[in-house]
């Protein structure tokens, strides 16, 4: 190709027509302005060094948790805008705001972003922020790999979000079923973006799973046996096991699709013996455990929030542990319920219908235990507690409609209708999102040292809860009226109009809730009540024994644990009567030097190299891909040969820090 011919080819490949729409241009401008402002701010305040030293190279689990949280909230915004675009399109019959192609792209990115780039990082934000503090550890088992996980996630999310600016967004649905994803039917690069970014973030997620599994198994404080662990640590353990077992089938499914597209293999090519059902099975072998990967952490949060704000120990701790493990195991035996209508036959469908219903039993145990924990307690209606109170009825209804879908003949009637859409939003918003927000409000003081304003928080909660039911209540009825999912517009005369108008209005109420939440955070950064005690809620677990935010090394002295709710026990018994620092009674001679992981830039470069590799794969520009691969190897080799991974913190330094926080007699 000659040089002049090369330029239009390049421009057309990088900026095909579906990146020229007004909505895309608007988003480009907003992103450009946001980036520009960020660069301006960092330069003006000379913050580049601070950004690099304190954040981009950090291996401190608390800071990594903060970065996950920021990313998750940004992605919640993007996914939420996608949702509102869809709802606007469906408000009126035949009154499209965006066309069918763009609608396909928007529901695809909405699904992918909400699951992989919002829910997952939000969960990892909470794990990182509190799991080591809860179990009395100084960091996670592999602090550097923790940073690697984050940067793989962050660069994968960046790659995915690049799609609608450069090359065109994916439009195959978050499930990305073949043969629609085959090159023949879907020639652009959008599908490659989806596959490659999920493969990269999947590596990061798997590493996180390994990290937290080993952290919880091996890093607990002396005396904290498994059955003395807080439930949130159990949630991290079970979630990690789920990740370890669920992500490999997804990796294989995505890899097969990518090979079909890039190397012209025949996994899903019907003319060469390919079988799209293989993908569907592998995908849901991942997909259903994934539902519990995002649900179990929420259960863990509720099991911490309810006892704290009821002033009672968790009702039925053992049955909580057993039921969580039961859910974890059962979740592997239900995947075919996502495709009852594919014609596997009555016996297979009956098996998967019954196994699905079985999951309701341990879940029911948990719901009752939370209620019994509240029973007779002195309940404090904080924002976090309100989310639990909103969760219980919402999630129970979502579970009941799930039973409806598990009943195979009923499923045939409502499969892939708005009933299904309403059901899974019911459990994912009512379960996961409420749980994550409850966790955010609960642990915010521990993460940042000040509380989020309760009045604003409660307003956001009510907007979310009411908005949720206005949005998704009518969608159940739309499902009964036969409206299929993923349709971009509809004709008048089906009786769908009014319900859709109501649903769209509800979506905007939820959007308002999001804005209040963001305002709540920004307002509280300035005016929020400082948490001087470290224990603002009169908590029960070890993270509340630390100052807020916890120092880099977390525990100046590792506590010894003798019962469940270790911090509560310490406050009750001889270790001190007061709240907060007094109960720990640190003495200067208890403090020794500590070995901490040293910051390192290689995780950031590894992520960047994966980004380049992924970008090369998306466009099949092999030179760029090879450059990226070389970068990956360079970063790995650097990590292998770097034996100087620790720094020492002297005892007197730690004593000074502890004294400055009022934890030691100066």
């Amino acid at each position, binding site marked *: 190709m000659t040089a002049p011919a090369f330029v239009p080819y390049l421009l057309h490949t990088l900026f095909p027509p579906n990146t020229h729409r007004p909505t895309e241009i608007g988003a480009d401008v907003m992103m450009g302005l946001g980036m520009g402002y960020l660069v301006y701010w960092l330069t003006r305040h000379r913050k580049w060094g601070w950004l690099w030293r304190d954040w981009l190279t950090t291996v401190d689990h608390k800071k990594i948790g903060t970065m996950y949280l920021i990313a998750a909230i940004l992605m919640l915004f993007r996914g939420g805008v996608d949702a509102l675009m869809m709802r606007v399109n469906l408000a009126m019959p035949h009154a499209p705001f965006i066309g069918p192609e763009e609608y396909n792209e928007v529901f695809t990115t909405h699904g992918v972003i909400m699951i992989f780039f919002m829910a997952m990082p939000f969960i990892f934000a909470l794990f990182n922020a509190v799991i080591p503090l809860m179990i009395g550890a100084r960091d996670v088992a592999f602090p550097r790999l923790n940073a690697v996980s984050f940067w793989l996630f962050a660069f994968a999310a960046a790659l995915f979000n690049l799609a609608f600016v450069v090359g065109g967004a994916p439009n195959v649905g978050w499930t990305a079923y073949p043969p629609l994803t085959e090159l023949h039917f879907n020639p652009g690069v959008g599908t490659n973006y989806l596959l490659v970014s999920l493969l990269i973030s999947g590596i990061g997620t798997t590493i996180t799973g390994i990290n937290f599994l080993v952290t919880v198994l091996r890093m*607990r404080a002396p005396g904290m046996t498994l059955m003395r662990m807080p439930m949130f640590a159990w949630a991290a353990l079970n979630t990690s096991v789920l990740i370890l077992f669920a992500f490999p089938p997804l990796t294989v499914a995505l890899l097969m699709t990518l090979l079909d597209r890039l190397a012209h293999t025949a996994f899903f090519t019907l003319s060469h*013996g390919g079988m799209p059902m293989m993908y569907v099975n592998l995908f849901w072998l991942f997909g259903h455990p994934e539902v519990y990967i995002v649900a179990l952490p929420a259960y863990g949060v509720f099991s911490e929030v309810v006892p704290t704000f009821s002033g009672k120990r968790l009702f039925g701790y053992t049955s909580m542990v057993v039921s969580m493990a039961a859910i974890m195991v059962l979740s592997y035996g239900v995947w075919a319920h996502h495709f009852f209508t594919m014609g596997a036959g009555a016996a297979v469908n009956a098996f998967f219908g019954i196994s699905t219903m079985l999951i309701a039993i341990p879940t029911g145990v948990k719901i009752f235990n939370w209620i019994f924990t509240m029973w007779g307690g002195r309940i404090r209606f904080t924002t976090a507690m309100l989310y639990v109170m909103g969760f219980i009825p919402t999630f129970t209804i979502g579970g009941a409609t799930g039973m409806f879908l598990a009943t195979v003949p009923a499923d045939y009637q409502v499969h892939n209708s708005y009933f299904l859409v309403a059901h899974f939003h019911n459990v994912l918003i009512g379960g996961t999102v409420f749980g994550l927000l409850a966790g955010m409000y609960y642990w915010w003081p521990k993460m940042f040292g000040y509380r989020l304003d309760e009045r604003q928080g409660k307003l956001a909660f009510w907007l979310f809860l009411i908005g949720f039911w206005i949005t998704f209540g009518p969608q159940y009825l739309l499902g009964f009226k036969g409206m299929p999912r993923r349709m971009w517009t509809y004709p008048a005369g089906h009786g769908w109009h009014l319900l859709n108008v109501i649903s769209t209005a509800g979506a905007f109420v939820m959007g308002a809730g999001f804005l209040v939440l963001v305002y709540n955070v920004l307002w509280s950064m300035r005016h929020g009540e400082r948490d001087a005690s470290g224990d603002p809620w009169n908590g029960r677990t070890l993270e509340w024994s630390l100052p807020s935010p916890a120092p880099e090394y977390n525990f100046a002295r590792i506590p010894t644990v003798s019962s469940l709710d270790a911090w509560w026990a310490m406050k009750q018994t001889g270790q001190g009567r007061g709240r907060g620092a007094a109960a720990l009674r640190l003495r200067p001679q208890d403090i020794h030097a500590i070995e901490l992981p040293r910051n390192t830039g290689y995780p950031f470069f590894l992520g960047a190299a994966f980004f380049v590799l992924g970008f090369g794969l998306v466009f099949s520009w092999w030179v760029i891909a090879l450059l990226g691969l070389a970068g990956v190897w360079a970063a790995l080799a650097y990590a292998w040969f770097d034996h100087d991974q620790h720094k020492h913190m002297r005892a007197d330094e730690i004593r000074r820090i502890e004294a400055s926080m009022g934890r030691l007699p100066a």
Partner: protein
Amino acid sequence: MSLPLGTSEEPLPIRFADEPAHHLAGVPLEFADEEQSLKITGFWMVLVTDLLIFASLFASYAVYRPMVAAGPSGAQLFGLGSAIAETLFLLTSSFTVGIAVWYMRRGNQRAMIGWIVLTLLLGAGFLGLELHEFAVDIARGASWQTSAFLSSFFLLVSTHGAHVLFGILWAVGIVVQVLRRGLNAVTARKVYTFSLYWHFLDIIWVFIFTVVYLGAKIA
């Protein structure tokens, strides 16, 4: 003495910089240091998820086996000769890496490196045989574009091959580190995890040999 493989109920003591790591009598170097011991536990988890990758690939292969389309079937394509030779190379290399770790436990660095080098040579021989087999198949018009069966065959077997290649590059890096730093808790842990990885690949190969090559003969 039980090896602390992460299943113990009692958490390990927290390590302070002014307290030397516990050099318990009889505990191998790589387990005596808490941080290295943690990494070994973590590596077992890596093997768990890798095993699941192969499980997914084996399941796919089993489903795709009849889907030969216009291409050859396994019975027509696979010869046992090269597969048996590959098996001998890889099984022997698993034995030699075991000897390398045996020498490492006795602090004999030279012998350990020698046996690792032999292991890698056997691994390279295995890879050469496999690539030759692939080249012959492709020359006969049986590439991974031919049929879904061959796609899944090449994906399964070349994923294993890619693991072997990665293992060789990784081990070369480890040998360089041992030569520069000698045997300490960190380098000993690296050799040990490499040996775990190598045995794991051997076990996977036994299944590939059974399911793919012997399976084709039986069918």
